[in-house]
């Protein structure tokens, strides 16, 4: 079976649409509630969901996602429970591409072979590992050679410059362009040469270019609309869920509005 992310990217290209991608911490408000939120988003037209696997030391995250991770760990969320949830979602017919956003230690702890087998068996389509730069990816890429394994999504930053071609070499799915320096959730503070940097990536990338970090509304990415293929919303979405008691309806409304506005830019 073709990877769900790649399928989705192809479909979006055919339709001439931009991708809307969200991040949510797995296990909030609880495992069952998380499942409902994924389903609501699929219905709302979200293209890809990033599921955050909570970790004790999320160094790439700002306070919003740090707190969400902390809460989720307190509630007992762990990798095994998230795999279980994935199995249930797929068994219940949910087809939205799902990417695990996680720290490397969590995968290492369970053993990379076991981890990848579980990803395949439970229907995980991609991985984003912010503390695993290109130079350290050899080991996991070896483990990801298995049939049906998730795609390792590559990240680039505004200061990646000369590193970009190397990072994109062999990259699949989409490339995640971090909009600013630092951590998730620093809104409105886009790096000064953002547009220039995104166009440089777009020029050399054979896969769709997504922008993330600090986005709240579709209009935030209006100045970049010609150089990006989609937008990723994390911290703002978490705040919105918290403010609305994790009601699937709130997620659905936000996502369908964002998706609609994104394509009207």
């Amino acid at each position, binding site marked *: 079976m073709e990877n769900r992310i790649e399928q989705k990217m192809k479909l979006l290209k055919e339709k001439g649409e931009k991708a809307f991608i969200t991040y949510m911490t797995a296990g909030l408000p609880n495992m069952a509630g998380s499942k409902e939120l994924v389903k609501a988003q699929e219905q709302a037209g979200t293209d890809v969901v990033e599921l955050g696997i909570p*970790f*004790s*030391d*999320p*160094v*790439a995250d*700002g*306070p919003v996602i*740090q707190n969400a991770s*902390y809460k989720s*760990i307190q509630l007992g969320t*762990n*990798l*095994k429970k998230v795999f279980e949830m994935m199995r249930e979602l797929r068994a219940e017919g949910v087809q939205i591409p799902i990417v695990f956003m996680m*720290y*490397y*230690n*969590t995968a*290492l*702890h*369970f053993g990379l072979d076991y981890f990848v087998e579980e990803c395949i068996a439970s229907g995980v389509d991609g991985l984003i590992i*912010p*503390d*695993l*730069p*290109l*130079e*350290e990816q050899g080991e996991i890429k070896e483990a990801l050679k298995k049939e049906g394994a998730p795609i390792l999504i590559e*990240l*680039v*930053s*505004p*200061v*990646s*410059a000369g*590193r970009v071609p190397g*990072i994109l070499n062999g990259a699949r799915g989409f490339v995640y362009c*971090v909009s*600013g*320096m*630092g*951590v998730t959730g*620093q809104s409105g503070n886009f790096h000064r040469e953002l547009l220039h940097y995104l166009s440089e990536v777009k020029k050399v990338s054979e896969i769709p270019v997504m922008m993330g970090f600090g986005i709240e509304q579709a209009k935030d990415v209006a100045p970049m609309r010609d150089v990006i293929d989609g937008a990723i919303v994390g911290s703002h979405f978490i705040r919105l869920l918290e403010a609305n008691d994790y009601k699937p309806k709130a997620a659905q409304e936000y996502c369908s509005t964002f998706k609609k506005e994104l394509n009207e830019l």
Partner: protein
Amino acid sequence: MKKNDKRYFGEFGGQFVSESLMNTLEELDQAYEEAIHDEDFLKEYDYYMKQYVGRENPLYFAENLSREYGTKIYLKREDLNHTGAHKINNVIGQILLAKRMGKKKVIAETGAGQHGVATATGAALFGMECTVFMGEEDMKRQELNVFRMKMLGAEVEYVSSGSRTLKDATNEAIRTWAKTAEDTFYVIGSALGPYPYPKMVKEFQSVISRESRQQILKAEGRLPDVVMACVGGGSNSIGMFADFIEEPSVKLIGVEAAGLGIETGKHASAMALGKPGTLHGMRSYLLQDEDGNIQIAHSISAGLDYPGVGPEHAYLKDSGRAEYVSITDKEAMDALLELCRLEGIIPAIESAHAIAYAKKQAKKMREDEIMIVCLSGRGDKDVHTVADYIKGGIPG
């Protein structure tokens, strides 16, 4: 597995950081390699070591301790350095490098506050802006050092996330660094973090063993049989080991904190019970729970209260070159008080862990054998903790 990669010690080390820091690390690596091959840089470093830090410090033959423990014990007196511990050796090196790279600001993490004080000191000396990240829990334990840092002109940032200790202060320093790397230099205090930090910290701390080696050859005409130091992240120990690693006749021993006892789960012995994993930019032994989350370390000494260990130590353990042991809070406190009475030296609680194991190790040694123990810091900062401990009796 990664034998030909300079960033690794065996399978440990590496650069597990976000993409946005990779160019920063590359720039740092280049600047560092140039600096340590530049005579002028080394001369400047030596100048400050001598005139400002007060090196070389003595390798003191502890006669009373030797008599009591039954073998020849020499103490490397890092406690006599300016600011009271070995931390300043590394800080001066890194700040000189920061200056050379044109950085105007430095940031640092601190647990006990010794590295924070040393960084604030270096920043004051070289006119740089300084921010120190410290866990709220540690700020309570080490109030005096917080005040010292402020007196020296540093900003002290409360860290109230996670366990509110060194681990979380380090997370926050890394986050800030990722945002501000363009004009800010991150001064890491222990022999850990992403490459080239473990290598750089070792280089600047290796002055400890370089001096010790010459001093012992002068005093005894031969190399020591045992060299010992306490291990938190592992900076004084890697400095104490450095010039002896290639001498197979010298036994190297690192002493971790067993806290209330390894069996209680309340300890900081990453080597004894940790499992390889990734944290703070490196792959090394880490204390982890069954879900792969990093566990909270425990030690009466804030400086050893870290759930991991520097990657070169992990390699020295696995290769069998060094031995790692652990000492409980109680054993360390007993040794601290014993050193006070026998030698008139108040050691830091961290260093007292090494003294405590020296007592055990001495039992396996002959009277004419020689042991060097790194007395990494002085105990003035710990007087409150010791007082509380004596008042409260000995738990466990």
